[in-house]
């Protein structure tokens, strides 16, 4: 797949069009958010995961707009062009759809966090894949509470699942994403599993009475 092209687009946008801040400000701010949630939900980590996902969803919806504005939707008439570039390489429509998700995931995370996750472990129907995060700035400086539960129950970076879900929903793709491993839990990788649920049709205005 044209992952080279994708990462080049991401790199290009990142370098030229994205206003930057110190990454540590983001890392530490995220840390206080998670800590606050753990406190508010009385260390009910399932609820914390859910709330983080919800926050991510809201962020994703906003992020994609920013991304589209930055990536010069102007010159390309619309986002389908990205997929078109891939289509020209001559892939069938199923892989094309998959490629579009991958594009947005990779470029999106590049712009959100300045990391490019690796795409791997596709299912044969191209409806599921994994994103492996070699780097995860959100988890810098982090150690989970040693309470015997957090490492089994808390997905510290769960906000990222929501970010992806929100972003893709805005471009008419409903997906489901969840972490399957996390370095913070003692795993060797940080891996997110992403599945395509359906493509979203245009909504119609409510019928006139």
């Amino acid at each position, binding site marked *: 797949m044209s992952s080279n092209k994708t990462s080049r687009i991401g790199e290009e946008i*990142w370098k030229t069009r*994205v*206003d*930057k*801040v*110190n*990454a*540590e*400000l*983001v*890392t*530490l*701010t*995220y*840390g*206080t*958010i*998670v*800590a*606050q949630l*753990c*406190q*508010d939900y009385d*260390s009910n980590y399932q609820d914390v995961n859910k*709330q983080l996902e919800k*926050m991510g969803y*809201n*962020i994703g919806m*906003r*992020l994609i707009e*920013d991304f589209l504005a930055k990536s010069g939707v102007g010159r390309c008439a619309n986002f389908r062009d990205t997929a078109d570039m891939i289509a020209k390489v001559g892939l069938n429509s199923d892989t094309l759809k998959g490629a579009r998700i991958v594009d947005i995931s990779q470029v999106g995370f590049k*712009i*959100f*966090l*300045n990391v490019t996750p690796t795409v791997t472990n596709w299912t044969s129907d191209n409806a599921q894949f994994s994103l492996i995060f070699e780097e995860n*700035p959100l988890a*810098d*400086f*982090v*150690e*989970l*509470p*040693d*309470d*015997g*539960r957090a*490492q*089994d129950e808390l997905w510290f970076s769960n906000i990222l699942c929501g970010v992806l879900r929100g972003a893709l929903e805005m471009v008419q793709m409903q997906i489901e994403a969840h972490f399957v491993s996390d*370095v913070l*839990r*003692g*795993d*060797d990788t940080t891996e997110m599993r992403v599945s395509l649920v359906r493509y979203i049709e245009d909504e119609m205005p409510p019928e006139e009475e």
Partner: protein
Amino acid sequence: MAAPPRHATMLSISNGDKPAQAQPQTQQTTLPQSPGLRVPSNRKTIYDRHLNRSRNAESSRASFAFLFGEMVTYAQRRVTGIQDLEKRLNEQGYPLGLRLLDLLFYRSTSTSSSALSSSSTSSSPPNRPLRIITLLHLIHGPLWRLLFGRAADALEHSVSPDTPNEYMITDNDPLVNTYISVPREMSMLNCAAFVAGIIEGVCDGCGFETKVSAHNQPTDLWPSRTVFLVRFGDAVMEREKVLERSGVK
């Protein structure tokens, strides 16, 4: 208003206020309930990575704005009014201040010892500020640069004889307010209360009991200009006098 136990908002020490006994139904595991955390075999843990690794790393400003935005929205749902909201934002900034202080000291020593080799720490202990002015300069300069990539715009001492304990740090265009359009009915709100909390954390961490609040002071040129009012406690002022007399800088 009694301040909540502030350390409770810090994740890494949260086991400190949660005694280990608090687990009646432990999940059945064959492994012995081993103390300590599991670590990845490739040793990607905070202990194995250099603290300065992320020093010059960058993230997107929009990401920060979105994250901060979610924090404000989340806080908004759990509060009753503007003051309450600001208080909560302040409380979320506080632990950040404590941490940033450590980071600042750690870095100020390692850079002063040698310009390039970041790994060697000098033998001289970090310079913890003892006097108010040194502390405020630390906030105005290094802290602001670490957080926002530039120094704050002004540092002033209250001119009123009644309030010698009041200092003002001004930011003409606070990063946290970049995208915030406060509705008229909430015109008092300043989300930079979060930054006020950070300042409070830094001061407290240095042993200066302080209350810090963020206030809108717009000018034509700087519509989101914000003044952080730093009010030191009586004990701090007393100590300041003693230090003054004994000539401590």
